[in-house]
């Protein structure tokens, strides 16, 4: 009985000495909070300006943001 208790005590006392599971390089992953997607929001001031994309629809958001990006192209902007 005494031997058994000693073995259990020894096992408990060294339990915290184990190594953490190591993660191979390249397989590490983000440990923080999840983030939401920009297309899961209502377009800004939709009630005044009209919805430019549909909430939750990534394709429509991308179409809208691409149109905005093209305004940086002054040659095309002038031609419009």
């Amino acid at each position: 009985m005494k031997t058994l208790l000693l073995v259990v005590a020894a096992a408990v006392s060294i339990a915290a000495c184990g190594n953490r599971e190591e993660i191979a390089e390249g397989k590490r992953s983000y440990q923080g909070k999840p983030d939401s997607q920009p297309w899961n929001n209502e377009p800004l001031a939709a009630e005044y300006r009209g919805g430019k994309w549909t909430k939750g629809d990534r394709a429509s958001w991308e179409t809208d943001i691409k149109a905005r990006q093209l305004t940086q192209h002054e040659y095309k902007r002038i031609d419009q």
Partner: protein
Amino acid sequence: MARMKFLCDAERCIECNGCVTACKQENEVPWGVNRRRVVTINDGIVGAEKSISVACMHCSDAPCMAVCPVDCFYRTDDGVVLHDKDLCIGCGYCFYACPFGAPQFPQAGAFGLRGKMDKCTFCAGGPEKDQSEAEFKKYGRNRLSEGKLPACAEMCSTKALLGGDGDVIADIYRDRVVRRGKGSEVWGWGTAYGPGKPGPTPPQQQPARKS
């Protein structure tokens, strides 16, 4: 699928610091932290001196993500590299790894104690509820969720700084290079996004002849 990138046209940047000011104002960036700054390249070399606007480039294979000991970095579906400030321990490894010097650390106490890392978010906020006060306080404005582009790029008066989907802004830049016939080098793109495919060769300019 959009893959957000920045591109700075050194032929056009006039070092007005409008992008720096726009970023500071839009995101209410604290004193001592500069998410974006304008630097001079080829300083002192007559004829080759240019200015460019530099911030986090949201690299394809971001070294900051690789070295972070607490894995607080993530990449959004649009390719924007963001981080969770609740997890950041302010160790500064990302600063040493970043080839652009993008990570910034506000002073958090005496003896130069570093606070949590702060950097450009491509005006995409962070891991908090979109457009919430918490998101704004920690990460700044989330313009992408409003259907807008980063304030720095939209504010640029000469359109030297372009922000948006890599394909779209590369097309804009290609058009410019072909029209003006020079300045096809894009500073930092190879470092941030890999070598990729070479762009078109601009038409050769005829050297001016003295008559």
